[in-house]
């Protein structure tokens, strides 16, 4: 399972939950948002600490996830926010927070650059329904 605890800078966190950078700074100063500090004294926020704020962000009107990008035939379009990007050689690993879970995508490094993906960006994961397997839980 993809790790659910990426560390984000205050600026990335602000983009992720849709508030301004000064608001995030204020929340850190007042203790509303817990952070860990780097050896250099910079704040880093764990993705899991942003969950309650993401819930509130969801309350804003959004387009139904399957109707978001109707130009493509793919049945599964999961809208989420980019929480991690790692580009290495030819490939890139992009992790998207979708609701309570993370979705990992491996795309080419060129595709990641072309999309100009950054942490906090809104993007959708697109999965052909024939590529989806079902595992029974017992």
């Amino acid at each position, binding site marked *: *399972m*993809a790790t659910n605890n990426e560390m984000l800078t205050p600026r990335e966190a602000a983009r992720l939950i849709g508030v301004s950078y000064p608001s995030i700074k204020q929340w850190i100063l007042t203790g509303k948002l817990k952070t860990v500090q780097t050896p250099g004294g910079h704040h880093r926020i764990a993705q899991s600490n942003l969950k309650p704020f993401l819930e509130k962000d*969801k309350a804003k009107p959004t387009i139904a*996830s*399957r109707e978001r*990008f109707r130009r*493509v035939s*793919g*049945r*599964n*379009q*999961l809208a989420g926010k980019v929480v991690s990007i790692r580009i290495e050689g030819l490939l890139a*690993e*992009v992790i*998207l927070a*979708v*609701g*309570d*879970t993370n*979705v*990992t*995508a*491996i*795309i080419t490094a060129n*595709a990641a650059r072309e*999309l*100009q*993906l950054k942490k906090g*960006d*809104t*993007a*959708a*994961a*697109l*999965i*052909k*329904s*024939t*590529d*989806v*397997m*079902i*595992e*029974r*839980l017992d």
Partner: protein
Amino acid sequence: MTISARNQLPGRVEEILLGQIMAHVTVRVGDNLIESVITRRSVDALQLKTGDEVKVVVKSTEVMLQKD
């Protein structure tokens, strides 16, 4: 069972449409509905019914990304 696939999303079966050879299974994962097309044989082998707790499994190389 351990599977290497990076994406394993827990959900509940909401609808199963059976065809002659294939079956269309819709799973609710949080607020999202995920559609899966698997063989009818698999549905029978797994004895899938609506309301069952399942995991939706997707290899990360099968996931495309789209930006507005």
